[in-house]
Each structure stands twice: as structure tokens, then as C-alpha cells.
């Protein structure tokens, strides 16, 4: 499989060479003299943009500075993270709860920054989990995951999480159509056409960012791939690309490529909203969880929901329309004016560009070509603005620079192509290394792109970096797009396989009320210890709660005796520091549950079930001062039924026991 793929890539590299050699361009000298200078940010100087890059199979989001490509942070979202204790400490375990139980890993594909009036506003970042369908909200004041909502009736949450221009909704379309949750799914797989459905979820976003599934649209059983909201004149609409309109259920590589055209589904969500308000939605039984991290108690809660509102697209003829789109469309991108919708067929050698005005006319004049599973199909030419001819092979994704230009990635011919949205003329092309997927221009899917840099996210890097065994890092490449010609200025390895990414001006994020410490006065954690004098140990049956504090450079208490085998010990550690960037760690020998990393003013809990008697040292894992190494203590574990009393101390310098 892999070999075949690699051979394919080689052949494609030749194709790329062919493409570049027959165009008037200089792809050979991709790095010119001043390129390094353009990407150089001196030590101590700040970058111009934050780049939030999906971590693919790492389940996390990584944050890079632009243009330096420096890795600033990895934000754990859908995977347990040993660095921060996310998913290991008791406070964040509920964040990874699902209707399938605790899921400590997922596949994170797209990131989306919140917007106001179609412009990036720096409040939140949304991220999708592909495998166990979920959407997360990351708060950019703390760069931590604040909320995760599971999506019922879905599988392979791929066309997600894309947002409307005022962050009214985050949407999620299902990649795999499956039988809905409320019916018996134990059906023959080859009854796909009868039994499988594609659900689109509209998740409402509240003022504080809180998410709630407002409704779902039941759509034909196809594969919904990507999505983007309309904006400006097309605000109120959403566009989803879909493939496998053949409704095949095996060997899709062949069987889902039978038709010359699949569809982009245009959804009038304002209309859908009206029907919901008019009570036309049907409550359908299902089960999904909603996890919220409370900033005051520093603790997450997981709640189970049991129903969801559904509109069936068949019952409402003016919500959904199918626009034919050539060759298994993947990308579906809307330009900053909201007028042009760019479709990209994975197998196509052209880029179709649709016009929102023409689409509206076609709907008004009923320029339909029949129906697909009850949904009107618009005539291709009626909605088409035009096609970009011979742009390259395998167009995937398009972003915009706000100056009338579009930039499309070509997976098969490994290049980025710049073209004029109105005239559809190709203006420039540069090679990538290799097999580029998504691309990002800061604000590139908003009404106001910052058209200065373009970052290409590549699937393959053979020969690009020092080898590291059979696996190589995926990569991102930064291009300066401020001039007529795109110029490669830097490439850097990424964490996991980067899919989509978004970027915003640094000032927008870091001046948006970013938190440097958690104020100890405002800590409402039920097991907080506000000052060493409050530190204590409380036994409740076989549960032992240790109220512990940490500060440079000691824990209180640091001597604990009277724990017995069979006890569950909870170390609730409060970091008393009120200084920026002074987390403390906590680890105890033999714990099988990772460790803690506690931010200044925060409380975190490690659950420890001792498995044998003896002395167990604990210590701080995050260097904090010259006396960091001295920040340690001992816990003694005695046999079950032992008469050792529960005691704790710090600094009492007891006389040596006999």
C-alpha cells in the first residue's frame, strides 16, 4: 500500500516537473538570497502571528510563531498529554469522556478561530475529533481546552468545525454515513443505500463560547468531506463538499469515482433555523456527552444528553440544494466577499468556481436537473462562475489573500498555485515538499485575510530533514506572498500530520485578556488549600484526601504516614505561586497515572492507589529554583489494618524514631 503510494508520488514528482517546466516560472531557485532574513525573528523578539496547527493523529493542536516557525506550545485537546497532565489528573479526565467511555486518543483535523463580523477575533479556537466525533473549544486566554461536545448520528467528523461569520454556529458534517443512533444498526453493510444517512450538526455557540447542538439535518447517505460558511452576501448559507454520491460501501477508491460529478451541498441554515423555531424539528433519541471545564473550580464535568432535534432534508425543499462539482470534491472554500465558492475535485484537473448570485438565480428560476435523494440538483452551468483551466493535478484547498487572489494546493502535482478569482487566470505556482494538503493564510477564510504569509502543510518530507528511522516528520512551509511571486522562506517539521491550520495577528491573541496566573483568591476548587496553614489530610473510609501546597521549594506536608494498603489516595496540590510561568510538578513513585503539572494559583489532583507497603518518595517534576531538587517528600504505606495513625508534618524535625 505504502509502496504503491510512494511510487505514485515519484511519478507525480515527474508530473510536477513537467508542469513547472512548461510554465514560465523559476521553480528551481525556490530559496533566494534574502529568504532566511524574511523568516528570521531574533531571539527575544516576538513573532507577528500565532499559527494554530492541527496535530492530526497526535490529537492535539500545536502553536507556532510566524514567520519564525518556532514551536510555542502544544495544546492537548483530544489526547491525554503527559506534559501537562491533561487527561491524567482527576480534573481533566472528564474532558475525554464520551458515550463510549474514556477515549484518550483521537484524530484532530481542522482548527477554526472564532470570528466577529467575519473577522478573526482571537477569543477561541475550535477543533474537531475525527474518529469519535467531537468538537472542542480552546480558550485563547489560557490556551487550554474548555469544552468538548460529542456529535450523535455521526462517524468520521471531517467537515468540521467550520463557523459562521459571527460564530453563531460551528458545523460538523459526517464523513461516514451510518445508520442513525436511534435505529438498529445491525444491518447488512450492502444495505447502505436504504439504511445509511449523513447527518450535519449545527452547534450553537453562546456568548461565553458555550456549545450546544441546536439541530441536525438528516441528509442523504454520502461522504461529507469539507465545509465552509458563507459570508457577507452569502451569510446564512453553508457549503459542504460531498463524495461517494454513488453510495458505494466497498473499495471506494474505484466505486466512489464512477460519476463525473459529485456535489457541493448548499444549506440555507437561516431557513433551517426558522423551521426549528416554528417547531418543525423532531426530537430523536440518542446519547452523547458534553464536557465543560469550569475555570473557577479548575474541574471538568461530563454530562450525558439523551435527545437531539432533527430536520429531515427530504421534508423541507428549500433548505438544501446540490451543486454538481467535478471528480470527488474535497475542498470547499468561500472567498472574502462571500460571492465565490471554490470546489476542488481530488481527481480533477480543473477548479470549478461557483457564484453565489448565480446560485440564487438558479434557485429562483428553478434551473434544476432533477433531484438527488429528494434534494434539488442545480444545473452545473447555472451556478458556475467559471473553471480554472489546467491549474495542476488534484486540487484540494483554497485560501485567499484579500487582494482578489486565490491560492490552491495541489496534492498530486505537489504545488501551490495562485490564480485570479475573477478572471480565473493562473498567476504563479511554487513547488512544495511534498504532497501538500491544506494551506493557511492568516485570516485566509475570513472576510479580512492578512495576505502576507502562506503556509503549506505537507504530508510527506522525504529528503527534507535528517532521517529518523522509517518515519519522518511531516512539514510546513512558509511562503512570503506579499509580492507578485510566492517566495519560499522557511520550512519546519510539525507534530503529527498537520491538516488545516489558522493564524491570527499575535497582538489580537495576546492582548485579549490572556491569563498569566490563576488568582489564588478566586480558586473555588473543592479541595483547594489556601496557604500552608490549611494543609491537612482527611480520611473518608478508604479514601485519603491530601490537601497539599507547593511553593518554591517545598511541599506542605512533606511527611505523610498512616496510609494503608487498600486506600485510594488523592493528592490535591495547590500551587501557591502568584508569579507568571512558575508551574510546579508532582510525581510519586509507582503511580500508574502520569503526574501533575500545576499552574500558579491552580489546584490539581493525582489519584494514587498504592500497590505495596513501604516508603514512596514524591517530588516536583518542573524545575523551579536553585533548590528545586530539594522539593520532595515521603509517603509511608502500611499494611491494611495497621495501627499507624494518619499523621502529616512539615519542618517539625521530629527526633529520630527508634
Amino acid at each position, binding site marked *: 500500500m505504502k509502496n504503491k503510494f510512494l511510487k505514485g508520488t515519484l511519478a507525480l514528482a515527474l508530473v510536477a516537473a513537467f508542469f513547472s517546466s512548461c510554465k514560465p516560472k523559476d521553480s528551481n531557485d525556490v530559496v533566494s538570497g534574502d529568504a532566511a532574513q524574511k523568516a528570521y525573528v531574533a531571539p527575544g523578539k516576538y513573532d507577528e502571528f500565532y499559527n494554530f496547527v492541527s496535530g492530526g493523529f497526535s490529537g492535539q493542536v500545536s502553536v507556532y510563531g510566524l514567520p519564525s516557525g518556532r514551536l510555542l506550545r502544544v495544546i492537548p485537546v483530544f489526547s491525554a498529554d503527559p506534559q501537562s497532565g491533561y487527561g491524567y489528573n482527576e480534573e481533566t479526565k472528564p474532558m475525554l469522556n464520551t458515550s463510549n467511555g474514556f477515549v484518550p486518543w483521537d484524530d484532530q483535523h481542522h482548527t477554526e478561530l472564532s470570528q466577529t463580523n467575519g473577522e478573526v477575533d482571537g477569543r477561541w479556537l475550535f477543533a474537531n475529533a475525527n474518529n469519535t466525533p467531537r468538537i472542542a473549544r480552546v480558550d485563547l486566554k489560557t490556551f487550554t481546552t474548555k469544552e468538548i461536545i460529542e456529535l450523535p448520528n455521526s462517524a468520521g467528523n471531517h467537515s468540521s468545525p467550520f463557523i459562521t461569520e459571527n460564530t453563531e454556529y460551528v458545523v460538523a458534517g459526517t464523513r461516514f454515513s451510518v445508520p442513525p443512533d436511534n435505529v438498529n444498526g445491525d444491518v447488512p453493510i450492502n444495505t447502505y443505500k436504504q439504511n445509511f444517512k449523513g447527518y450535519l450538526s449545527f452547534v450553537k455557540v453562546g456568548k461565553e463560547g458555550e456549545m450546544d447542538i441546536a439541530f441536525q439535518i438528516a441528509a442523504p447517505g454520502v461522504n461529507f468531506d469539507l465545509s465552509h460558511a458563507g459570508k457577507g452576501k452569502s451569510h446564512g448559507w453553508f457549503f459542504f463538499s460531498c463524495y461517494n454520491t454513488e453510495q458505494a460501501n466497498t473499495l471506494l477508491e474505484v466505486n466512489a469515482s464512477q460519476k463525473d460529478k459529485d456535489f457541493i451541498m448548499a444549506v440555507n441554515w437561516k431557513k433551517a433555523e426558522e423551521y426549528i423555531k416554528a417547531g418543525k424539528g423532531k426530537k430523536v433519541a440518542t446519547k452523547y456527552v458534553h464536557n465543560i471545564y469550569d475555570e473557577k473550580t479548575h474541574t471538568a464535568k461530563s454530562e450525558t444528553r439523551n435527545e437531539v432535534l432533527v430536520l429531515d432534508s427530504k421534508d423541507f425543499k428549500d433548505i438544501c440544494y446540490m451543486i454538481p462539482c467535478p471528480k470527488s470534491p474535497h475542498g470547499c472554500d468561500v472567498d472574502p466577499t462571500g460571492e465565490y465558492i471554490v470546489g476542488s475535485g481530488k481527481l480533477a484537473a480543473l477548479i470549478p468556481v461557483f457564484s453565489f448570485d448565480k446560485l440564487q438565480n438558479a434557485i429562483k428560476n428553478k434551473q434544476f436537473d432533477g433531484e438527488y435523494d429528494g434534494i434539488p440538483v442545480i444545473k452545473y452551468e447555472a451556478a458556475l462562475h467559471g473553471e480554472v483551466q489546467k491549474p495542476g493535478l488534484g486540487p484540494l484547498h483554497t485560501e485567499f489573500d484579500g487582494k482578489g487572489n486565490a491560492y490552491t494546493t495541489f496534492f498530486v502535482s505537489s504545488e501551490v498555485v495562485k490564480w485570479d478569482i475573477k478572471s480565473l487566470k493562473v498567476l504563479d505556482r511554487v513547488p512544495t515538499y511534498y504532497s501538500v494538503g491544506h494551506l493557511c493564510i492568516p485570516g485566509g477564510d475570513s472576510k479580512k485575510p492578512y495576505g502576507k504569509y502562506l503556509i503549506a502543510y505537507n504530508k510527506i518530507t522525504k529528503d527534507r530533514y535528517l532521517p529518523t528511522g522509517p518515519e519522518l516528520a511531516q512539514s510546513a512551509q512558509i511562503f512570503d506572498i506579499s509580492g507578485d511571486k510566492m517566495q519560499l522562506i522557511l520550512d519546519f517539521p510539525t507534530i503529527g500530520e498537520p491538516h488545516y491550520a489558522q493564524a491570527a495577528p499575535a*497582538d489580537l491573541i495576546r492582548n485579549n485578556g490572556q491569563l498569566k496566573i490563576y488568582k489564588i483568591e478566586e480558586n473555588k476548587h473543592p479541595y483547594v488549600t489556601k496557604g500552608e496553614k490549611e494543609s491537612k489530610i482527611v480520611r473518608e473510609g478508604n479514601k485519603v484526601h491530601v490537601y497539599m501546597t507547593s511553593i*518554591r521549594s517545598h511541599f506542605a506536608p512533606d511527611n505523610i504516614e498512616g496510609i494503608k494498603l487498600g486506600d485510594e489516595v488523592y493528592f490535591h496540590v495547590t500551587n501557591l505561586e502568584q*508569579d*507568571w510561568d512558575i508551574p510546579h510538578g508532582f510525581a510519586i513513585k509507582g503511580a500508574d497515572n502520569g503526574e501533575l503539572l500545576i499552574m500558579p494559583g491552580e489546584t490539581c489532583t493525582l489519584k494514587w492507589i498504592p500497590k505495596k507497603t513501604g516508603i514512596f518518595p514524591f517530588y516536583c517534576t518542573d524545575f523551579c529554583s536553585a*533548590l528545586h531538587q530539594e522539593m520532595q517528600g515521603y509517603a509511608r504505606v502500611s499494611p491494611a489494618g495497621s495501627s499507624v495513625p494518619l499523621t502529616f508534618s512539615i519542618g517539625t524535625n521530629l527526633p529520630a524514631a527508634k
Partner: protein
Amino acid sequence: MLISCGDKSKSTDNSSKESTSEEATKTEAVDPSTYDPNRGLGKFTTVDLGDKLDVAMAKKGEEIQTVKCSSCHKLTDEKLVGPGWKGVTSRHKPEWIMNFITNPDPMIDKDPKLQAQLEICLMRMPNQSLSDDDARHVLEYMRQNDGVK
């Protein structure tokens, strides 16, 4: 240059507004020859102390001490992590104390007494993010601890 410097001046402004007085003060460093070892370094130039103890203020100061200070300082003259508090209000001017507890890092870099202390304790006092009022209350509690009635 433009890439990184375009908003750098702004960034310094922004960070100095918030609790990281550290960066701002360090970069706009005060000339060591002008450092006033009586007043210290920080926003407080004069602190008016009453003749008598303000009991309410001292009470608030004690609450803060319990949460933010007692981990490292005893009320006696015994050193814990940092020096004991006994006699601190006679060893230092009130301005010095207020400046130090709200702005510890830059002062440790400048103040001869603090540098001598650092050689003993080997621990830089953490910034505990005290507000101006917090600092004043803690000072009053220190006075109470030193016998002011």
C-alpha cells in the same frame, strides 16, 4: 527588522501594564548609582504610617500572610525559606518593604542587602502578585508583629 520590531514597542507597553513589571523594569533599567537603598525600586515613594496600629488593616494583612507568605516566612526571627519577619519594620523603611514585596525581582538585582540575603537563602522571593492595598495591609501586619499597638 520590520517583521519582528513592528510591534515590539507595543509589546513592551502591554507587558508592563500587567503584572510582569520584571521585563519592563529590567529593560528600562535604573542606573545603579541612582538606586536608593532606603526606598528601594518600585512605585512607592512615601508611605504614611499612623502612630497607632490600624487593626482592621493588620487583620487583612494577616489573611494575606496566611495564604501567600507563611509558606516561607516565620513570624519569629527564625529563617524558614526566607528570613523571619521579626524586626523587619525596624530594619527597613516602609517604602522599601512596600516596593520589595510588590516588585521583588528587580530589587533583588539592585539592592545590596537583598543580594547579601540571597547568598544566605539561595532563593529569590517569588512575586506573589500583591495589589497595592495587599502590600499596605501586609506591612501593617508586620508592624503588629513588631509590637506596634
